[in-house]
């Protein structure tokens, strides 16, 4: 139940998802091995969802890694002793409508069915916040007019094809993939989704205990992460190739060059993170009743490591 602070093994977690390219690049280029003390063994774990990642962090199975801000915040609100020490990337959430659904503006979403990866996940909040604030539409969870189902983004093509859903809030690269396969089209693009450009789509999280007791280790991890992010910015083509290969390795999913290119357009790779962005996202989460108490994220974000 505690971080592996001065052992010689470090486990980093991330998702096989285009917002987590920094993790993939770091793994491929062995960046953690470089910044961490010599002889430290670095291992990587891939997670099916953010909640699983957070649990692993809390039980000490991983020491840090990339996760969506939703799960990080939810767990923090429930009392998890964690810190966000950097961002992974921003953007990448797209609202898509089924081809042939006849929907071409958000006003038409009344009495439709939408899908998100999980109830209350980052993409869900982004979509629902936008709909509530701009169009006055809510999900059935809040006795509203839109039916909500959940499912993995990889299955959205299928859900569109079988007309089970009309709309989906989709993270990249699945948005581009669905577009390419022709089952759905973009309804609201990244920059128009709530918090679309400012909100980190992935954040680098570690345990508070490590931050307090082994800041050197945290610094080393953040340094590696920063290096990876810089690498992506400087060598986008190589980073794309690494991402495509890693995703193929981990998930057995083949992403075409055009899908990767298109996803890349919607994502901004940066490690800068601001508490205010997260706080306003958390407020939306509260307004949508995912959180029972008014959130106060003070103490969640620690930017000292990126400023080093």
């Amino acid at each position, binding site marked *: *139940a505690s971080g592996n602070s001065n052992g010689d093994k470090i486990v980093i977690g991330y998702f096989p998802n285009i917002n987590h390219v920094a993790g993939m690049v770091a793994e491929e280029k062995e960046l953690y091995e470089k910044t961490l003390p010599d002889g430290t063994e670095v291992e990587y774990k891939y997670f099916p969802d953010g909640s699983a990642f957070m649990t692993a962090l809390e039980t000490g199975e991983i020491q840090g890694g990339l996760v969506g801000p939703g799960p990080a915040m*939810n767990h923090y609100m429930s*009392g998890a*002793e964690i810190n966000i020490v950097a961002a992974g990337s921003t953007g990448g959430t797209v609202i898509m409508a089924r081809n042939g659904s006849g929907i071409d503006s958000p006003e038409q979403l009344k009495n439709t069915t939408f899908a998100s990866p999980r109830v*209350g996940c980052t993409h869900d909040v982004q979509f629902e916040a936008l709909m509530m604030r701009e169009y006055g539409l809510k999900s059935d969870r809040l006795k509203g007019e839109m039916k909500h189902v*959940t499912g993995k983004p990889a299955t959205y093509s299928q859900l569109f094809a079988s007309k089970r859903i009309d709309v989906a809030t989709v993270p990249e690269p699945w948005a581009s993939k669905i577009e390419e396969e022709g089952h759905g089209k973009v309804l609201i693009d990244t920059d128009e989704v709530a918090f679309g450009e400012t909100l980190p789509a992935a954040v680098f999280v570690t345990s508070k205990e490590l931050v307090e007791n082994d800041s050197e280790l945290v610094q080393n991890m953040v340094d590696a992460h920063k290096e990876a992010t810089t690498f992506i910015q400087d060598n986008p083509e190589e980073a794309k190739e690494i991402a495509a290969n890693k995703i193929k390795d981990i998930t057995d999913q083949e992403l075409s060059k055009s899908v990767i290119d298109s996803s890349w357009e919607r994502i901004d790779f940066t490690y800068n993170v601001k508490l205010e962005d997260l706080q306003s996202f958390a407020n939306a989460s509260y307004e949508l009743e995912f959180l029972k108490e008014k959130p106060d994220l003070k103490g969640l974000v620690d930017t000292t490591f990126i400023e080093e």
Partner: protein
Amino acid sequence: MKPSIWVKRIAFIIVLLAIWQGVYMSGYFPAIQFPPPTKVFQALVEGFADGTLVGALLASFKHLLIGLALAITLGTLIGVLLGKSRQADETAGMYLIAMQSIPSIVWVPLAIMLIGLNETAVIFVVVLGGTFVMALNVRTAIHSVPPEFIKAARTMGAKGLPLFFKVEVPASLPYYMSGIRLAWAFSWRALMAGELLSNGPGLGYSLRFAMDFAQMELVIGIIIIVGVIGSVVDQLVFSKLEKKVMRRWGLLK
């Protein structure tokens, strides 16, 4: 039951709670991972007060009732077919056992992909969970009708459908009741599996949601609810019914 037994049982619970509180206070586990009994109790009270748990319970009962009713009906039909027709039994009987040995959770992905992530999928899983065990028990029930009952009835001129409904059906009731009890137990398990992977509403979904939001006290609280409902329904409804029939049928003293 003697009152002393209840004293022991309650003492046992109190000791358990005390140990739990003790471990919590020792601080060995972080609080987010290991909440104290008081917090669990509080979470339950809140859940019931704000109606979320009540709604979840109602939804779960709805799924269970519909699913179980369908499972019992379907299971009875399949069981009677296999029990009465040797042809059918030899052809399909083996596969029934195979189907029964598939954990119901395994059906969930199939249900979700075929039917969609909605309540119908949950009910579908509940039906699958109960049907096969019901069918197997109905088949056994029919096979285990004491042949002397049938012989005796035949000497009294009964045959065909009247023989089936007036003798075989009542004679197989004890096994049939066991079948219903097992169908309930498996449907109940399937219900939790289906709901846990669904997107609500339902008790299983609330459990999943609590887990996703790291509300450990609610997780434990819901597990307690599930245990209490499971054992109360089993003991007070199905076991009792089964024993009553068994006693009347002279199979139990």
